[in-house]
């Protein structure tokens, strides 16, 4: 590390205070600030709409940036990316549908909070967490990029395989009540992910003769179907029993500030989740969608009251939203230092840079240093704008949703679901998939199958399969091909994490018992002395 090929080697010996000041002055310009604001706001709205992903939001707005100079264009796209990932929390909390796949975990505790009339608190918590996560991520991007990017390269096919398996072990904590059902759900998700073209060999699987199924089950329609449709059906089914609206907290002043204070009093959760987010973002191909789920999993495992998660714990929302916003900047680390995007929206930014004639990678840092630093620092501004928009917009959205009676809300949500599912690939099949999986999800929920594991299976199936087959192909060069899965130290670490994560539901009650016994012993000692 270091040396002539190091991205920062041109700086050796120079004092760099100037570059930050130059970058700041570039940004303190009304036009740029307005663009960042519009980008963040637009991204938030797009992210809040289920079916419009962050990737799509960034891609759709690239043409608008053609008329801008490269820095203004890139800064706008960066703001959209940040805003979109944050915006996903709104629909996750209010209608149990992740606005983007990065907010799947926010549904788990966010929606129960909304049902209890604590929607504003959930949104406030998500906003604070997102902003904190984004700012943390930007610091990492600013100071640690080259080192982290080098580490990310050490992830090869075997490591991706274990990463996918680790992702599946999260199922164990999501469904502590019935791990068997969770595993069945997960495997069902993996099976769904195999529909379509095999990543290796290109054969078509499970298409039942329908050309449209070559594309497989798209993640977004599955997400919308599994998370949203059952809730809508529930909403309709019980509308006559309870009050016709989603309950809203009484107009309490200062919900935002008190929640923000609560969030900031969870530094360990925040730090843990943000670090996970950055790491997942840096690893190209880990997808970014799983950052929030891994963070959630780790928070649950580390908590003294794991069973409370899923019932409306603010901590749950905080962990998922801080992780997914830290992941945004994480995915930009390999993009800006190596020219390798860490997640699909970063890939679109890569394309945008190329269109403006700039090639991301070490040359960009060396030749267009000011440009890169201006872009990175603009992310700070984007996150702060998100805070303000969230404070005011969040409350408005929560009030709007809860003021709408079910008989208007339910069709509106279904309308959004249809548009969202169609918008991904312009395929009617996706809308059909969404409804089909939605009905299946409704039935499965009644039978005790949580949609989380199924969706995890859909996301992780391809990662696991590709990692597995690629590793075996590379392993042909080894005397015993299977050893390739165990040689890299990163693999070993991941395997240990998998074992820990999978066995946690069994091991943790025993640890609880030991803890209780120790506490009892201490108390007895104190009463004796």
């Amino acid at each position: 590390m270091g040396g002539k090929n190091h991205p920062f080697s041109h700086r050796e010996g120079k004092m760099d205070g100037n570059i930050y000041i130059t970058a700041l002055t570039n940004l303190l310009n009304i036009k740029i600030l307005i663009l960042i604001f519009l980008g963040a706001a637009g991204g938030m709205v797009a992210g809040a709409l289920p079916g419009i992903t962050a990737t799509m939001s960034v891609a759709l707005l690239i043409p608008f940036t053609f008329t801008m100079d490269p820095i203004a264009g890139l800064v706008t796209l960066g703001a959209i990316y940040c805003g979109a990932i944050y915006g996903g929390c709104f629909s996750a909390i209010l209608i149990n549908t992740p606005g983007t796949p990065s907010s799947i975990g926010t549904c788990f505790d966010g929606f129960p909070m909304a049902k209890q009339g604590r929607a504003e608190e959930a949104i406030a918590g998500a906003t604070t967490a997102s902003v904190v996560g984004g700012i943390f991520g930007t610091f990492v991007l600013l100071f640690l990029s080259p080192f982290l990017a080098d580490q990310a390269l050490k992830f090869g096919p075997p490591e991706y395989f274990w990463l996918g398996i680790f992702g599946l072990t999260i199922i164990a904590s999501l469904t502590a009540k019935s791990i068997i059902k969770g595993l069945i759900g997960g495997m069902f998700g993996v099976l769904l992910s195999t529909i379509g073209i095999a990543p290796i060999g290109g054969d078509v699987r499970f298409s039942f003769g329908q050309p449209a199924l070559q594309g497989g089950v798209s993640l977004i329609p599955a997400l919308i179907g599994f998370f949203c449709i059952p809730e809508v059906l529930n909403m309709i089914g019980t509308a006559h029993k309870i009050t016709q609206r989603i309950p809203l907290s009484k107009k309490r002043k200062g919900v935002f500030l008190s929640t923000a204070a609560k969030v900031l009093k969870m530094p360990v959760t925040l730090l843990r989740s943000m670090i996970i987010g950055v790491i997942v973002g840096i690893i190209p191909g880990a997808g970014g969608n799983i950052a929030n789920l891994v963070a959630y999993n780790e928070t649950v495992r580390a908590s003294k009251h794991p069973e409370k998660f899923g019932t409306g714990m603010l901590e749950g929302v905080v962990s998922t939203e801080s992780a997914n916003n830290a992941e945004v900047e994480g995915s930009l680390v390999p993009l800006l230092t190596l020219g390798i995007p860490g997640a699909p929206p970063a890939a679109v930014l890569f394309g945008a840079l190329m269109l403006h004639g700039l090639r991301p990678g070490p040359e960009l840092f060396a030749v267009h240093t000011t440009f890169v630093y201006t872009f990175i620092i603009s992310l700070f501004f984007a996150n702060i704008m998100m805070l303000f928009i969230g404070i005011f917009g969040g409350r408005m959205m929560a009030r709007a949703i809860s003021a709408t009676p079910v008989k208007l809300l339910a069709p509106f949500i279904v309308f959004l679901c249809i548009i969202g599912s169609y918008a991904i690939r312009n395929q009617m099949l996706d809308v059909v998939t969404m409804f089909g999986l939605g009905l299946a999800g409704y039935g499965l929920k009644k039978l005790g199958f949580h949609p989380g594991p199924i969706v995890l299976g859909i996301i992780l199936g391809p990662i696991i399969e590709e990692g597995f087959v690629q590793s075996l192909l590379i392993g042909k060069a080894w005397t015993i091909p299977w050893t390739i899965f165990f040689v890299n130290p990163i693999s070993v670490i991941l395997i240990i994490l998998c074992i820990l994560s999978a066995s946690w539901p069994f091991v943790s009650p025993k640890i609880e018992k030991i803890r209780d016994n120790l506490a009892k012993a201490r108390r007895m000692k104190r009463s004796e002395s």
Partner: protein
Amino acid sequence: MKKKILLLSLGWILVSLILAGLTFNMALGAYPERPINYIICFNPGGESDLTARLQQPLLEKVLGVSVIISYKIGGGGALGWSELVKAKPDGYTIAGDNIPHIILQPLIRKETGYKTEQLKQIYCFEFTPDVLVVKNDSPFKSLSDLLDYAKKHPGAVTLGGSGSPSANSLGVAKLNKEAGVDITYVPFTGSAPTIPALLGGHVTGLMSYSTMAIVYKKKLRPLAVASEERFPALPDVPTFKELGLNVVEGAWRGVAAPPETPDEIINILANAFDKVCRDDKFVGRMEAMGFQVVHWGPEEYTKFVQKKTEEYKKILKELGLLK
């Protein structure tokens, strides 16, 4: 009386003929009068997307209507092409198409939803040959170094690439046959994941595209190019042919229309694309990204597709992949 009727009928016929002639001309002369939908069958930010976005503003100028880029992603492009062949053949829906994808898919899969011949080719505008690359600091300084090593250690050399089957995988298959070696091809979903795999040392090298070799120039060492002649942007890299191996493979990109689209409309579009693809700035940007711009009109492109179809049928049969 009879004279009047005769004159009237003649007049009537004349007017009808003139009107018919005018309508016929109007139908053609008026194209295009609505926005044209340019379908891209791959992910935004990818190469197909980038080339289309470079063409879009120029096309709009030449054709005088908006050109809207939309995406129909899935099945390696199959979803988009199967939609294209079902679209109205009025020239308002076109799609980017890629060789070898449009040829390999119907040959290998049972129900792609389209047949290669159904895509009415308009224009082919770029070629990216396969390039065999290793890391900058790799011990292999030339192709013969790599092949010697491969001969001594069968199965030890791994070359990553995008897709399976694809231009990259066929490139490796051809190399194996020509050089008599056993190099393992490791497929990745797309070209992007191959770069970290190589840079992290997880594969020996890549059978990738010229675009990757140019974009990541500082980190990769190209050993050979799979084109007929040396690639202009990589003048110091020998072709496989120069080194005695008949390996010519790569990807071509063009545009196609639904099967029944009238030839006049195809020609209007082909001329438009030709103007766009001869624009200096366009060519400059494309070459800077590692594309070799070609200029094939409908007949040339269609003939090329037929030639390649025969060639791939043979190779696939040898590899046992034909369905």
